[in-house]
């Protein structure tokens, strides 16, 4: 089943490149993937601590390299996110002017690559699938992007290529840090070695730093975030949805999957650094976001800012905070995808996203206005949306962090500052909503029509998922928490 979920988009992408009808095939494949993921969700037993649905194909016995896939609560959450966002993105894509087949193939490659990375239990394929998803992103921005697409594509290419090679170095070091006898690319084997204390403290500190920088670049951790807003502003809407919604979560997933469980000593050592950087994300980037004059840039910066909260949850290393981080990853993926989709649709219709030129659009596009409002509320973290649950858990988890560091430590200060970040995000989101959808309607836009009913499907899907897990976060928490219980309790 896991294999089907990974390869359904990839095979569909190949078929589309060969010449299958692009849109039908892509929608069918993404819906099938979502269906299969829901089946996985239904058959998943949260009580079990281990990986489930494991399949393995040996590649190289000498290197202990095999293509192994499997899921636990953490990966299942992200696979589910990927499946939902893929359906929405593919549905939203509509008709493409040039190279339609290639466009849909790229979208499906991103989706398949991301799911593959989330479901791989093998370091090598974990890395390789992510790279497989990155290349189509570059192409999507370079070929179909708008605005300053070439510059944006170059920037993201160089940035992410260097980031992923730094990550590769970290992974190789991780592989080499365990004694020769237990060397393996299998994450489970590495975890076993780590729990036996076979990775020395020194090695942990070095490797964690490399992984933090590598994943940090991929995830736009301050100060490596500058590629993100530019790329999202230039990217076509479905590409921005997929990258900001799914692919950027890869770095966070990597930290949760590898860095914390395998390198607790390293994580502890670099906690202060990480907290400082994520405050940069929340406060500095938040303030920069307020200053933006265009909707797409604002959304790009806001996605960078919200990553800061997720990093806070990861840094806290408490079960509550980490689970909150997963919930927020999921919720943020959905809400940012929703916002990028609507922004892309606005750009398609009006040709501009500059705040000064827009205004009062809710009068002509009530459905889009409503959806954007819900997305904005979700992004702010109002109760009722999944984001709220995630942020609350992160704040509590961070305040009473898993390192058991006493009062008035950097964590408490960070939590208080991060709460101010909520205010910042409220300011820029509501300001954007007011500038775009409220106020006097510009003459130029009186002829605009609202979203067609076909486009309402993905919007409804995303909003529905947000609300569903907003009201019932408990089902989500029950699914993901066991994934952390084993090693985070051991931390204490």
């Amino acid at each position, binding site marked *: 089943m896991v294999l089907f979920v990974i390869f359904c988009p990839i095979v569909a992408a190949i078929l589309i490149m060969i010449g299958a009808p692009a849109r039908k095939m892509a929608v069918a494949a993404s819906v099938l993937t979502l269906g299969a993921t829901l089946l996985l969700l239904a058959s998943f037993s949260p009580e079990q601590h281990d990986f489930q649905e494991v399949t393995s194909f040996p*590649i*190289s016995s*000498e*290197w202990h390299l095999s293509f192994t896939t499997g899921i636990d609560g953490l990966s299942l959450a992200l696979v589910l996110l990927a499946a939902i966002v893929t359906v929405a993105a593919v549905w939203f894509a509509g008709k493409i002017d040039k*190279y339609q087949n290639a466009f849909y193939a790229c979208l499906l490659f991103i989706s398949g690559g991301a799911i593959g990375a989330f479901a791989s239990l093998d370091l090598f394929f974990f*890395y*390789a*699938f992510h*790279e*497989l998803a990155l*290349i189509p992103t*570059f*192409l999507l921005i*370079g*070929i179909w992007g708008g605005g300053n697409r*070439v510059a944006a594509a*170059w920037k993201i*290419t*160089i940035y992410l*290529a*260097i980031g992923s*090679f*730094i990550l*590769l*170095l970290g992974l*190789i*070091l991780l*592989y*080499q840090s365990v004694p020769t006898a237990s060397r393996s690319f299998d994450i489970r084997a590495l975890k076993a070695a780590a729990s036996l204390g076979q990775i020395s403290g020194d090695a942990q500190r070095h490797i964690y730093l490399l992984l933090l920088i590598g994943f940090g670049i991929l995830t736009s951790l301050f100060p490596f975030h500058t590629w993100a807003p530019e790329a999202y502003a230039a990217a076509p809407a479905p590409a921005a949805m997929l990258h900001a919604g799914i692919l950027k979560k890869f770095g966070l997933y990597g930290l949760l999957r590898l860095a914390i469980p395998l390198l607790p000593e390293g994580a502890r050592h670099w906690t202060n650094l990480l907290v400082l950087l994520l405050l940069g994300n929340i406060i500095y980037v938040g303030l920069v976001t307020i200053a933006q004059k265009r909707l797409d840039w604002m959304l790009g910066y806001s996605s960078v800012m919200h990553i800061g909260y997720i990093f806070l949850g990861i840094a806290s290393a408490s079960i509550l905070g980490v689970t909150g981080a997963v919930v927020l990853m999921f919720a943020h993926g959905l809400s940012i995808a929703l916002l990028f989709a609507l922004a892309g649709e606005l750009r398609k219709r009006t040709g501009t996203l500059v705040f000064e030129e827009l205004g009062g659009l809710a009068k002509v596009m009530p459905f889009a206005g409503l959806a954007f409002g819900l997305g904005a509320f979700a992004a702010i973290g109002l109760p009722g949306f999944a984001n709220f649950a995630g942020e609350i858990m992160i704040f509590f988890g961070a305040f009473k962090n898993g390192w058991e560091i006493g009062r008035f430590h950097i964590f408490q200060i960070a939590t208080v500052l991060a709460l101010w970040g909520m205010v910042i995000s409220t300011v820029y989101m509501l300001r954007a909503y007011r500038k775009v959808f409220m106020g006097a309607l510009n003459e130029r836009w009186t002829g605009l029509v609202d979203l067609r009913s076909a486009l309402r499907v993905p919007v409804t899907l995303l909003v529905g998922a947000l609300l569903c897990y907003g009201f019932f976060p408990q089902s989500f928490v029950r699914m993901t928490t066991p994934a952390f219980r084993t090693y985070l309790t051991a931390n204490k």
Partner: protein
Amino acid sequence: MITAPLLEVGVLVLGMVILMFEAFATKIDKRILAFAAIAGLAIVLVATFFVAPVPSPNQATGFWNFYTVDRLSVFFKQFALLTTILVLIMMIDYAPAVRSSFPGAHDGLGEFFTVPIFTCAGLMYLVSAIDFIFIFVSLELVTISFYVLVSFTRKNPVTLEAGVKYLVLSALSTAFLVYGIAWIFGVTGQTNLQRITEALATPSTDQSATLLGMVLVLVALGFKIAAVPFQIWVPDVYQGAPTPVTAYLSVGSKAAGFVVLLRVLRPFATLPQMQRLLVLIALLTLIYGNLAALPQGNLKRLLAYSSIAHTGYLLIGVVCLDSNAVVFYLVAYLLMTHLSFAVLVIVAQQTGEQIADFDGLAKRSPFLAFAMLIGMVSLAGVPFTAGFLGKFFIFYAAILQRQIALVVIGVITVGCGFYYYLKVVRAMYWQPAAKIDNISVSTLSRIAIGALIAATIWLGVYPQPILDALKR
């Protein structure tokens, strides 16, 4: 089972027969000779899989003093044969350019197809050579046949200038090689690598004199593999030489250089200065190759600088003395370089060899554009291509040896690589085409390019066959 020396004899006989046939059958289409050569080399290639084992170098006598048959050498004989076959396929596409250089309709073409066979024999001898005299002789066979090939389209002054530059600098490197060998012989009294190792183990051997000899040999090999600062000939010669010959130079000649380097370095690995020197050369090569490639607008020249850059990555593997990583990288390099050159040969005859001439290739020939795409992303090092695994094994070895400087510079230059390789992709897919016409590709080339694409991806996903072939 056959004995290994028969392979080279087979290749040489093939060359002579085709040469004779060429001389007497004047009326035929000379391209038939190329097909015959490809078929003959393919037969030898098959035969390489049935090679009988031979005495180990310790108890070697006579003939086996010079010639060894280990896994590495058999593997590289296959490598040389495969490269030559691919180059011959490219040469068939390149035939019109050769025809225009000679007075008769088919003059010169027969030799154009025959000389690579002798080069191939030279390469095959070279990878088996374990004696400095034999290394010298077979290296010169390769080099002299390359002199002829590089300046083959003799009416084109650019080609001839490339030939002159190649000749002067190669001869210079030969002089260094010979002088270095003289010193090593003088210190140890031996030319056989195994005996040199034994002689160096005795404490009475003079260290500094040995080092001088080895550095001189290293300079010579540095010319062959295009390492900085001995790379000055590369851009001009690569750009000026006939394109199939460029591909041959950048793959065959370089691979042979690395095999010799690996073999020659082994006795001297105990000298600590040696490693420091190699690290320095590798760093310079990585930085120069990648930075100089950035502004290039001519694809052939770009590939020349990229070939210098790849020498840098290969040298990382050499510094770590990890021959398996080097060999895997070379195999990946063979696949992706031939892929890019095969497309280049075809496209260059239609429009030109500037990157701008590739504008809109995706519209003109989706197949060629896709092949170039795979070649470029593999050269850049994207996962699921052979190029990535090559870099992976190299970096793995470097991290294991804690060569921090090499790893850091390596990663930064990989980023540069992404920039200039994807420049080609950008031209093919993102730019509008200057002229819309379909490019026709011959069936043989189509098969060869298809096979190269498949192999690049296959090795990127499943490298075990190569690893196995090296281990047994």
